[in-house]
């Protein structure tokens, strides 16, 4: 088992995963904001 050589799924490196995680959260908050306003 060699952690370093393991291929990372979906992205090239872990940094891209972290950025994606943050962007996904921002997108969710944005969608929730629209959801709240649309139905209120």
């Amino acid at each position, binding site marked *: *088992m060699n*952690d370093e050589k*393991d291929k*990372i*799924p979906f992205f090239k490196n*872990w940094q891209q*995963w*972290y950025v994606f*995680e*943050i962007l*996904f*959260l921002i997108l*969710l*908050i944005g969608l*929730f*904001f629209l*959801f*709240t306003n*649309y*139905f*209120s």
Partner: protein
Amino acid sequence: MTPLDWTVLVLTLAGIIAYGLYKSRTTHNLDGYFLSNRSMHWGLILLSIMGTQASAITFISAPGQAYTDGMRFVQYYFGLPLAMIVVAAFFVPVFRKLKVYTAYEFLETRFDVKTRALTSFLFLLQRGLSTGISVFAPSIILSSLLGWNIYWTNLFMGGLLIIYTMTGGAKAVAYTQQLQLIIIFIGMFLAAYMVVHMLPQGIDFTDALHVSGKLGKLNVITTGVKEGKFNWSDQYNLFSGIIGGFFLALSYFGTDQSQVGRYLTASSVKESRLGLLINGLVKVPMQFLILLVGALVFTFYQFNKAPVFFNDIQLTSINLVYKDSVNDVSRQYETLNLLKQKTVYDYSVARKQANDAAAEKHITSLRLLQHQADSLRSKLKSWITKSKGDSNDTNYIFLRFVVDYLPAGLVGLLIAIIFLASWGSIAAALNSLSSSTVVDFHRRFSRHKISAEKEYNISKWWTLAWGIFCIVIAMFTYNIGNSLIEAVNVLGSLFYGVILGVFLVAFFFKRIKNGNAVFVAALVTEVAVLAIFALIKTEYLKLGFLWLNPIGAIGVILVSLIFNSVLTKKNNCGPLLQFSQ
């Protein structure tokens, strides 16, 4: 419950125990028992992390919370994805590199044995007590709603899972959590489907959302700002969710052995990281959907007769003193219910016909009626409080709906998922309590070398001992008042911040090397956090409990920095002034 419900309930629970026992075969050493020989795939890690965090309280309380306070509780999870990044990037590689069994082992490598023992002790205290509440919380609700004996319910809730947790360790915990979560998701999906299906003819899912939204239940995003000022005592808003939630999630996933123990079972750093990061992606939407079920139940009760109070036992208990008043309030509530049913239907029809003026008129009336209904409920709650009863019926709302309205068979399945959700988190807690006791205390302070087989046996007995401890705590827990999900989170907030602070110093403040400085800082800050909590409870201070997490963590960092510089200066003065190590 009908015979069909009982059959579904018994078969589901027996199936899980059998599956747990089937998956129990593991090597007879600590690696096998606590870490499943570090062999798990990320998918199993993900489900295990989710199953550990989502307890029965999550599925009982959250829909009730949406019913009473709206969906804004989801903001509490906004800090979680950010915490997942920090844990994946910094914590996981260090834990893996050092091949630790518990997170606290790392603190001995970094500082000293007493810092390790203190944090492990705080974990055992907090996790042991909160697991006891996790046994009691669903038991008291089920026993009240179904008339079951609370002691037997506690025993089944906290006892049956011990069979496979004790035998199979981390492996049995992970595999049963996987199956439990699948059953839970199926059950919750069916419940949500039934709520919409049982709405009056012509009222669909979108109509239900409009009704719920207009009555303030779809308030997913709130800022906590009122009249230009930020309300620090507001529990759930965007800022407390991101900042407070981040610290709480970071301490929970980075330093709580019940979670660390899950992702340490992964076969590599990659598998641990993927499990954590994907948890960060799915947790918020999952919580959103659970809360949405509560908002839909709220809409359902606009079209149907809603109980004035969802916990019948409390209502009966005040009947002796307030009988006439209760009857009077119930009658008024029923009349309001009928008016609401007509108004909400008229609103939905007007909205569908795009008759904005009529829709606006109906919704204004509906809000007024809702306000009057809330006032009646408040009146009733004040009588319950005066009679020293539990005036919070949040935890009873969803299950009361299940028992009163769902068809036979589905009731049994939903009662079963309460047990399963409970077992998933309790099993992981027992496994982690046992691992911390054995690895951080028994093995660390034992004078003799213990064989692998003996360590394995000791670990099994500690799992049983902690299981019994949690059941005993559950037996003695009575009427903790607030929403139970909050009670567990408040308890966590009292200790998590400090534990996290110690870990943050260990990871990010490399120049702090003095174990004494961190140890004293942790003690001082813990006392300060408890003092602040006492001020909040006695209403001398208005502060949401989530803020205790950043206070604890930042407090430990600052006090460590001060003590470290003082002790380093003293050490430089000469050997006579040195603290004993």
